[in-house]
């Protein structure tokens, strides 16, 4: 991963190096008793043009914090983010506007992500005006084209969000994300708030738009089925760090980290009434993470080495599959046998 980041080719649209976001928690006015929440602690990512990178992990693992930092909504504690050749830094409003034309976001909850007091037209036109598109005809043209792209009719533009169903709202949300022609779109659980029978529509739409508009996606989800379907590469996060990353096939067919294996085996198999894989204990308190490997307390392969500092490093194999586990080689012999996956 590191090596790849060192020589970013033209095909890399986003590279993140050593991203860390720490939040001070609690404590008195003078800082006594203040503790540091390491929400993200040393994350490297690389997104290639036209690719979809799946970011998975349970709540609290830091995946949303990564997204917010990429969008410029959080100032990272350290790290370097390069998007489309531009280093991203600071919070100046000029930067924010430039950033807005590179990266956009599709939100989880289509009910909370549209301003209830704005028509679709205003939701889509205001950003254009803000970004210097003033010609009436151009605005109108782009608006119409975008609505068609996402499968809405131009005459629906005058309506308010509450007049649409959940699926349609998510289409509006997607249109808003794409109206400035961004290059990267971060999809934060884009279908999990939708009715099951609607999800396929949105997944298909996102994949179609990626092709027709040449977009690159970062797909954040806890639904591994959706991630497998959509992603080219996958990064698995646990307690602020990436524990495994690689091509989708490596991750889902030959998962190497015990945590990834647990995640996959915890998904109920509809074809078989079989026990689900469980782990010991609960997610450790992120304010007081364990020494050594963060997953060790819950890991059934853990040995003494795992419970001591330092944290294992993310070792990259020649095929680009990287794992953060002391015992990856030992475990690799133990085939990941889950009949459901074949």
């Amino acid at each position, binding site marked *: 991963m590191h090596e790849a980041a060192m020589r970013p080719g033209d095909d890399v649209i986003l590279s993140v190096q050593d991203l860390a976001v720490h939040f001070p928690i609690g404590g008195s006015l003078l800082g006594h008793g203040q503790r540091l929440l390491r929400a993200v602690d040393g994350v490297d990512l690389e997104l290639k043009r036209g690719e979809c990178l799946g970011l998975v992990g349970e709540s609290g693992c830091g995946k949303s914090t990564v997204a917010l930092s990429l969008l410029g909504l959080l100032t990272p504690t350290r790290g370097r983010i390069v998007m489309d050749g531009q280093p991203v830094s600071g919070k100046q409003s000029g930067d924010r506007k430039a950033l807005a034309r590179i990266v956009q976001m599709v939100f989880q909850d289509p009910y909370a992500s549209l301003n209830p007091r704005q028509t679709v037209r205003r939701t889509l036109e205001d950003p254009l005006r803000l970004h210097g598109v003033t010609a009436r005809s151009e605005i109108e043209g782009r608006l119409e084209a975008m609505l068609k792209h996402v499968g809405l009719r131009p005459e629906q533009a005058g309506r308010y969000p509450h007049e649409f169903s959940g699926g349609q709202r998510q289409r509006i949300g997607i249109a808003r994300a794409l109206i400035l022609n961004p290059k990267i779109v971060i999809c934060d659980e884009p279908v999990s708030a939708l009715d*099951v*029978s609607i999800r*396929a529509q949105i997944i298909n739409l996102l994949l179609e738009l990626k092709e027709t508009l040449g977009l690159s996606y970062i797909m954040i989800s806890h639904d591994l089925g959706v991630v497998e379907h959509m992603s080219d590469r996958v990064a698995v996060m646990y307690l602020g760090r990436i524990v495994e990353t690689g091509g989708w096939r490596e991750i889902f067919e030959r998962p190497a980290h015990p945590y990834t294996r647990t995640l996959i085996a915890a998904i109920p198999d*509809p074809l078989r009434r079989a026990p*689900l894989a*469980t782990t010991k204990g609960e997610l450790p308190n992120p304010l007081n993470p364990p020494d050594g490997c963060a997953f060790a307390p819950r890991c059934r392969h853990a040995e003494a080495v795992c419970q001591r500092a330092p944290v294992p490093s993310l070792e990259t194999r020649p095929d680009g599959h990287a794992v953060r586990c002391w015992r990856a080689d030992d475990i690799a012999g133990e085939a990941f046998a889950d009949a459901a996956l074949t």
Partner: protein
Amino acid sequence: MTTAPLIEVEDLRIDLDGRSSRVAAVEDVSFRIERGETFGLVGESGCGKSITALALIGLLRRPLSVASGAIRFEGREIQSLSAAEQRDLRGDRIAMIFQEPMTALNPVSPVGRQIAEMFVLHKGKSWREANQLAVEALASVRVPAPERRVNDYPHQLSGGMRQRVMIAIALACGPDLLIADEPTTALDVTVQAEIIELMRNLCAERGTAILMISHDLGLVANVCRRVAVMYAGRIVEQRGSDEIFRACAHPYTQGLVDSLPRLGTRAAHGRSRLREIAGVVPAIADFPSGCRFNPRCAQATEICRTTAPETTWLDAGGLVRCHHHA
């Protein structure tokens, strides 16, 4: 008595009282659950699965009410029981756990006391005895250090722990039926796995039947022996869970199965466009006439628009409600 199923629902209709009109939120729903069985009720939001469950335990509140049909528990019709008799069943024989374990627990009462209430209410125990039993109940759902945890308040526990407390409450009196309404929707997958396994094991040990309600067809098929799929207030298909993914008969079930990207599919068959179910889930007030799925169904014909299909038995076992079933 021995032949009567544990619970039997027959032609249940639940009405929603509007300002000016009554509409049926649930209609023609029939199913039975045997002692110790696991039965799943699957559907999307607004399909009526949760209110069906609430009707079983007698917790429907205005503007919802049972309009017709029967719910029989061990052959006794629940609607005909007095309020006090119904309360004796509730919690003691039929118990329920809910989706949001945070809000489902009283925030200002220690969890131990919330468990102990069950023993005071149904087993005639004193508070002292009940508190002791609460510790045991908490231990049985594998909460570490139960003797200390009983004094904790819900906000001091994690989501998974809270749901364990809910299970401890529900199973406290050894009920015959546990209704689990989306018990893991608010939880992460690894926690979900733990809760499901806990529920499954405890109920199997004690011979408690489970009625599981969820939007997640995969989860229900994994947990339950039989599954009923609901759409817009009606059961459209009822099958053994082994068959529902392999050979479902109703276009809606088929649509659900096909439209979900399932783990392993891409590796096995490559990535193809997911099959979509067109249109939107109808709201209760806008249920279409005829077969309620007809506006979204690719196979719909004239008869589907005019006539509601009857329930038919399938040769392979199970029931389907479709004019053109596979």
